[in-house]
């Protein structure tokens, strides 16, 4: 069994097209997990092993977060493939949760790009230590020194080169290792032979200069190294120890370089991963203790404690459902009893396996720090499993409300059945992806966190489930809400022969700062019998589903029931539901209702010359500019913009800036719709009804 100090859980994060998939592919190859190298967009049509889905291959992006185990230098490395797009927030964050360290891949030509900033920010949020790999040193215009500067200036990393290139662009042959002061070249047909030699004469002055910079930066983390520098007794071991400390403390980012495509520098990056990134025992992890109202509680990566694990990814394989788990505490083996914190259901561990990208191996047990996969467990991704008796959750149970929806229609009967299967799977995998059938139009509606988010699922329906669908135009998920406290007193009475209906409800509705709906029962003395209180709650819930302004759900409402009346014979569940519905309708208009819309946090980045165009484009979209940051060449504008104004923004931005600016966006909050827009929405809603 692997001891904890020999494990690494690593993610590879990058801007699209930085060569992440190729790099992963080479790592698998050099770690002897695959026997042949495939190119991402290669001639052999096989594609890189880590890319599970055709779609990802086509778009050059990676969405799934499969975990692959490899071995390097006696260490067991779990590679977690992290999705790079912000539209997949939940998925990104869930995979970041299980990382202990990350490789930030940068393109030697493009440097720090907007997506790099996004993934770096996410890694920072989860306190993930990073090392950088400047890839594509063989490309025309490659300049790893500039990329290092950008890491410092744009991402505020204390970035320090551990290597310098031997030749760039077409002449890129290898790297100079500044720790050992050796030239490394990568020979053999697939670069599998690493040869260490003398540093070429012409590179020596640069190597000495950069090594001095490395020593300067590293010595801050080690008194021994500082002393050794003064006494001129520096050893590679001392440098490594200092760099490791700085990296794990997230105060230093070692920079490696090479070209994965040309098989240069990957092995030394692997040495860097095992050498400088932390093992699971060096990382603090917290769970939420649901017994203590969700208070954070520290977990210890100790196999002898009761097990706590997180299901971070579900996958449909040829042999059934596979659940990827990260074990935070304790150990599990076949037969271990666990409890799903969310559902309360108990399971017994059956087959336990470790995954390579396309093959799997049975393992007898797994312990704290490790990543493995379970067979035949029914759960959703994001679920926590604990030893019975514990009630811990690894992730917040809070899931953001979807902000955009799309009507989809299967093109034929066959697709209808397949679609149901696909939707069932997707909603389990991703809690921000939801689906329902609109009771009026009878259309199937899918909802998610952004345009691209839904696009990808529509594509997956086609490719993985052969479900062909037609889609309607994207629809913003508006909400309605109230702004004033209003009393209600409503009697529901019906006497048309036979059993009558009677129910009276008295109370008030008021704005609720957090959450969608809260029901409070303050009825005393049985003025409404206990049995009918849930009926009232149910009635309010049902009427909230569709607001009167534009027909969208009403959120942010607290209903307080204070009094009422009933009839021995005529009162019933249905009567009190109807009374509640009537009461709310009566009160709603007086409660100064308003329309809310999703507001996105938008970040635009481009050359300074286009700052004016970017400002104008935000202003025209009812956006509020929060800040702009300029560093001489580039400007980044952070703004808050209503989602409804963002459709088609990528095209607009492209033409405004000659394709030189990029943007990212994520959901921020629900904001009030200004009066003219609200009137227009109400007009459209009314026209739709008529």
């Amino acid at each position, binding site marked *: 069994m692997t001891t904890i100090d020999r494990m690494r859980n690593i993610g590879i994060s990058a801007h699209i097209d930085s060569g992440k998939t190729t790099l992963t592919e080479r790592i698998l190859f050099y770690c002897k997990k695959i026997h042949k190298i495939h190119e991402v967009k290669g001639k052999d049509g096989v594609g890189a092993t880590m890319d599970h889905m055709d779609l990802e291959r086509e778009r050059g992006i990676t969405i799934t977060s499969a975990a692959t185990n490899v071995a390097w230098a006696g260490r067991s490395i779990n590679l977690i493939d992290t999705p790079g797009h912000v539209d997949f927030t939940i998925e990104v964050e869930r995979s970041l949760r299980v990382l202990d360290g990350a490789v930030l891949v940068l393109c030697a030509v493009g440097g720090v790009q907007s997506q790099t900033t996004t993934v770096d920010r996410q890694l920072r949020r989860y306190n993930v230590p990073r090392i950088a790999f400047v890839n594509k040193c063989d490309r025309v215009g490659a300049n790893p020194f500039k990329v290092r500067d950008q890491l410092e200036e744009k991402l505020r990393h204390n970035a320090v080169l551990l290597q310098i290139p031997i030749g760039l662009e077409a002449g890129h042959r290898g790297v100079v290792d500044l720790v050992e002061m050796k030239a490394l070249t990568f020979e053999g047909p697939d670069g599998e032979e690493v040869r260490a030699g003398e540093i070429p004469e012409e590179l020596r002055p640069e190597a000495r200069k950069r090594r001095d910079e490395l020593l300067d930066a590293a010595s801050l983390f080690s008194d021994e190294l500082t002393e050794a520098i003064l006494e001129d007794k520096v050893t590679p071991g001392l440098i490594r120890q200092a760099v490791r400390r700085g990296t794990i403390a997230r105060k230093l980012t070692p920079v490696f370089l090479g070209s994965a495509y040309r098989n240069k520098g990957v092995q030394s990056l692997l040495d860097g991963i095992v050498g400088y990134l932390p093992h699971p025992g060096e990382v603090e992890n917290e769970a939420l203790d649901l017994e203590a109202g969700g208070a954070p509680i520290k977990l210890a990566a100790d196999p002898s404690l009761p097990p706590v694990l997180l299901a971070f990814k579900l996958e449909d394989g040829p042999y059934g459902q596979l659940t990827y788990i990260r074990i935070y505490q304790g150990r599990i083996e076949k037969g271990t009893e666990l409890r799903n914190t969310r559902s309360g259901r108990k399971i017994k561990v059956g087959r336990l396996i470790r995954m390579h990208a396309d093959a799997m191996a049975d393992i007898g047990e797994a312990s704290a720090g490790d990543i493995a996969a379970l067979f035949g467990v029914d759960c959703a991704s994001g679920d926590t499993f604990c030893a019975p008796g514990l009630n811990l959750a690894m992730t917040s149970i809070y899931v953001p409300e979807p902000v955009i929806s799309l009507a989809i229609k299967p093109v034929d009967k066959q697709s209808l059945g397949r679609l149901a299967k696909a939707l069932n799977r997707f909603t389990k995998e991703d809690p921000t992806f939801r689906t329902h059938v609109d009771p009026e139009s009878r259309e199937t509606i899918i909802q998610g966190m952004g345009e691209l988010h839904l696009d990808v699922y529509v594509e997956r329906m086609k490719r993985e489930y052969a479900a062909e669908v037609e889609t309607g135009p994207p629809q913003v998920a508006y909400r309605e809400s109230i702004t004033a406290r209003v009393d209600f007193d409503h009697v529901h009475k019906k006497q048309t022969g036979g059993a009558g209906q009677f129910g009276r409800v008295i109370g008030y509705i008021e704005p609720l700062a957090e959450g969608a709906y809260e029901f409070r029962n303050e009825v005393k003395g049985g003025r409404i019998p206990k049995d009918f209180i849930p009926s009232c709650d149910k009635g309010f819930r049902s009427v909230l589903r569709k607001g009167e302004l534009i027909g969208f759900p009403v959120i942010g409402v607290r209903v307080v029931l204070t009094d009422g009346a009933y009839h021995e014979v005529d009162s019933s569940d249905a009567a009190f539901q109807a009374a509640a519905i009537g009461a709310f309708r009566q009160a709603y208009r007086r409660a100064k209702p308003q329309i809310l819309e999703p507001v996105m946090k938008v970040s635009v980045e481009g050359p*300074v010359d286009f*700052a*004016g*165009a970017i*400002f*104008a484009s*935000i*202003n025209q979209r009812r956006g*509020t*500019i*929060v*800040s*702009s*940051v*300029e*560093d*001489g060449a580039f*400007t980044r504008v*952070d703004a808050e913009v209503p989602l409804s104004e963002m459709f088609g923004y990528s095209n607009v931005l492209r033409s405004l800036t000659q394709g030189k600016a990029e943007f990212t966006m994520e959901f921020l909050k629900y904001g009030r719709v200004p009066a003219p827009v609200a009137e227009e929405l109400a007009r459209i809603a009314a026209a739709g009804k008529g």
Partner: protein
Amino acid sequence: MVKTALSKRSPLRILEEYTHGGPGAGATAVLASPKGVGKTACLVHIATEKLFQGKPVIHVSYASRVDHIITWYEDIFKGIARRRRLRNAPAVRDEIIRKRVIMNFKQDGMGTEQVLRSVEAMITFGKFPAETVIVDGYDFGLAASADLRKFKEFARRLGLEIWFSASLRETGRPLYEADGMPCVLADHRDALDLVITLHARGDHVELRVVKDNDHPAAGVLPLKLDPKTLLIA
């Protein structure tokens, strides 16, 4: 409006009373002190008072990170809201925040002209009708007198009131000239309309007007900065 009533007795009004209406449109003002005395708090307080009056502010920062500046505004706002017992604080906050833009620059990386070009782009293309520009973290030690004249000219052309902070570094030599003018600002005297210095005095910080256009300077103001709340009163 609530907001107007609130700003009537604001420290900014007192400042304006003692400085012939404050710097005003087209003018430049400086708050100067050694590090850690409370310049940024004062600047952010002035900006927040302007926001309370419904006047848009551009906060140009040469030093701090954007999130740090936002935190400053949050803290100062909370302090003011508490002191004035604002009832609908979150709503007021949301409203005034829309009138503030933060622009972050690196002084060594870019010239004054580029900075002013971007600020102007924000006002014209971004349709952001700023009246006040706060310039925080500008290094007067590095500034040529031509740079300050560009700011002054910019203020005049666009009708802006520009407030700077100036950090006075201990160098072993005296910090102030005989008339109280900080030495580092002496060369820029002509380009600055209003100069106020901050002095730590035990439990409070004193504000002193050392230049007020062509008027005689008022000297020590009846305003104090409380180092605990970082508010002026």
